[in-house]
């Protein structure tokens, strides 16, 4: 990369292992705060399991609420991992190096959190096992494969398995490094986890092949996961959900929120672990360009969704869209459009703003608020006005239990990421070094031209 400062391998080791080997005070402060959020969630979940779904705001027409919104949201966030690592690895985008691991790990943790919300959603978590793991072999009752809710766990578990393999394979050389730098029980743990990595030529070759193979294999999963999540809605008979563009529209939305979340994560990591030499403005610059395109694509799909309903005037769907476009939902709708397109896209168009990290962090947060609202607007108003002939329209307002559990989900992902950063290096050290080795500078007259030389 153009602005890569000259760093010796020893310096890189020291900088990137710092978060693992040293524990500053702010780590504990953050840990306590996030554990508080998780504790709040555990309390709310206890109430939910004890008293049943009555403690939520769900009611007769609105059977799905914050839990499903949050599920879709976190599955969306999880798309960042593959977007960043698999696609950028396959296209050899050099700027991916410092962000791949954080993005992949976020994929794993947000998928776990999303799965948790499906379990909470049923209100009786112990029964949910029966859904994903068909244990009733004796009576021959298997999950009904016609149900999108059976495709869901299949897609999510495939994605989760792939992502965990992805993270782990890329961790092995760094675990070996951590083994060499630690003593005592930690040395034994890292030594076991690194599977006897010695760094010889054959092992490197295998690792590279694994990385490429996993990237290629996980790409179809990446497209399918959010398509399948969208089919939970698209395959139903509910006007406003039974929309044909949902699959690509959801995938684009997922990439938008996920990559924006990676920006936020990068900004936080950069200041928390003092990684100024590794996560540089140019990385934000590149991601900003990517996001500008994705946000416009999302805007196009949303425009189609609204316009199809308004122009076709199919009675039931029109009713839903009318509710979505009238107060109070109109305000949320406008906020969403502003958050997702009108505010961030102009910012991302300017190089000066793309390289300004506080502004990029702000746009990332704004986009995620917008994307959460998008899922809200898809799920809630639609259920409120389900089929205009029927006599059961209603309202929905989330209860404190649901709100606490949404807060918990952010705390949970944050806590898991923090603990991960304590145990494993958050920036792939070997990839960083690889980038340094490949870096060359050519002189053409007076011009110095930075370049990457690959074997």
């Amino acid at each position, binding site marked *: 990369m153009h602005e890569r400062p000259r760093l010796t391998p020893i310096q890189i080791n020291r900088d990137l292992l710092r978060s693992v080997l040293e524990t500053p005070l702010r780590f504990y402060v953050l840990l306590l705060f996030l554990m508080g959020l998780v504790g709040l969630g555990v309390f709310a979940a206890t109430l939910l399991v004890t008293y049943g779904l009555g403690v939520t705001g769900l009611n*007769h027409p609105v059977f799905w609420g914050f839990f499903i919104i949050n599920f879709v949201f976190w599955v969306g966030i999880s798309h960042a991992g593959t977007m960043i690592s698999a696609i950028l690895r396959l296209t050899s985008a050099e700027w991916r190096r410092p962000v791949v691991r954080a993005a992949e790990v976020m994929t794993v943790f947000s998928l776990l959190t999303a799965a948790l919300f499906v379990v909470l959603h049923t209100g009786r978590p112990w029964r949910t096992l029966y859904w994903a793991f068909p244990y009733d072999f004796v009576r021959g009752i298997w999950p009904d494969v*016609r*149900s999108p809710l059976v495709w869901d766990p299949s897609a999510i578990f495939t994605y989760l398995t792939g992502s965990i393999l992805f993270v782990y394979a890329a961790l092995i050389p760094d675990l070996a490094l951590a083994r060499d730098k630690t003593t005592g029980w930690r040395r034994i743990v890292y030594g076991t986890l690194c599977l006897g990595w010695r760094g010889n030529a054959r092992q490197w070759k295998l690792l590279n092949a694994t990385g490429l193979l996993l990237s290629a294999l996980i790409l179809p999963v990446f497209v399918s996961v959010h398509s399948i999540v969208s089919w939970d809605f698209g395959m139903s008979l509910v006007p406003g959900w039974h929309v044909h563009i949902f699959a690509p529209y959801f995938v684009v939305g997922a990439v938008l929120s996920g990559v924006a979340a990676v920006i936020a994560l990068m900004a936080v990591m950069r200041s928390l672990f003092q990684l100024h030499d590794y996560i540089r403005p140019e990385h934000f610059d590149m991601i900003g360009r990517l996001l500008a395109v994705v946000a416009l694509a999302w805007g196009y799909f949303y425009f189609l969704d609204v316009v199809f309903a308004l122009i076709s005037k199919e009675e039931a769907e029109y009713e839903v869209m009318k509710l979505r476009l009238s107060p109070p939902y109109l305000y949320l709708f406008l906020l969403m459009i502003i958050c997702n397109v009108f505010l961030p896209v102009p910012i991302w168009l300017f190089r000066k703003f793309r390289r300004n990290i506080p502004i990029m962090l702000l746009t990332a947060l704004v986009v995620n608020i917008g994307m959460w609202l998008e899922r809200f607007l898809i799920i809630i108003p639609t259920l409120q006005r389900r089929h205009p002939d029927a006599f059961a329209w209603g309202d929905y307002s989330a209860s404190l239990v649901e709100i606490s559990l949404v807060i918990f989900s952010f705390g949970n992902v944050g806590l898991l990421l923090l603990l991960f950063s304590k145990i494993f290096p958050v920036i792939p050290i070997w990839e960083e070094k690889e980038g340094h080795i490949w870096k060359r500078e050519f002189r053409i007259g007076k011009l110095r031209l930075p370049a990457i030389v690959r074997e």
Partner: protein
Amino acid sequence: MKQAAEGKEQDTSKPVTSIGRRWGMVVDLDRCTGCQACVVACHAENNIALNLEDVVLQQRAINWIRIERYWEGEYPNVKARFLPMFCQHCNNAPCEPVCPVYATYHNQEGLNVQVYNRCIGTRYCANNCPYHARFFNFWERDLDDTHREYLNPNVTVRTKGIMEKCTFCVQRIRKSEWERRQADEELQDGDVQPACVQACPTDTLVFGNLEDENSRAAQLAQNKRHYRVMENLGTDTNVIYLKKVDPHASETSPAHAGTAADAGGNSA
């Protein structure tokens, strides 16, 4: 059940392994007075939780059958129209394929059955039901000894987290079947009466086997006034409504009431 799933692939309009039975209901809207006796009977028969004030305000009331009331016309010529609405036992039910655990499926008698023990509470079926006929138990029932006294022993008391809906009083179907079998006889038309049918004072609701051409329900279903609610969705329901015929109907009357063209039709 396995056979049921296979059979459905081929022909959705007929019950699977035809045992010559497809339970259905005919609702003559010309006769309905909106008295709600069916609602009360259903609650008593099927151990439905009491809809106390707070539950109703939470919009979580459970009514397996409800009377939808539509107002028609401008003041002072306002007319109330009633439409009893309950599970339509669709032959092509939207609720069935979305359940991941086969908690709801179509049985051999054309009934859309709900298996409480399998239900895990995804509530997808309820979202997908265009008739709003499915109800979820948000709270655990608080039954004291007095309450237990009036429970129907033939019907399960549902726990929290379970989806429930009209069963066409399947326990009564089974009872009549058993009684006839004891006497080595076939089930006759009129043997089975769900609680709502039994309670209806105006004979609005007629229950019977729609496969049997001679049953009263099948005969009534041939009536010129017959229609099915939201037929455009392709749900192919087993509940057939007979339009209300109103000689004074205005030409702008809504779809549910009889139109001027039907006014001369044969009222039952």
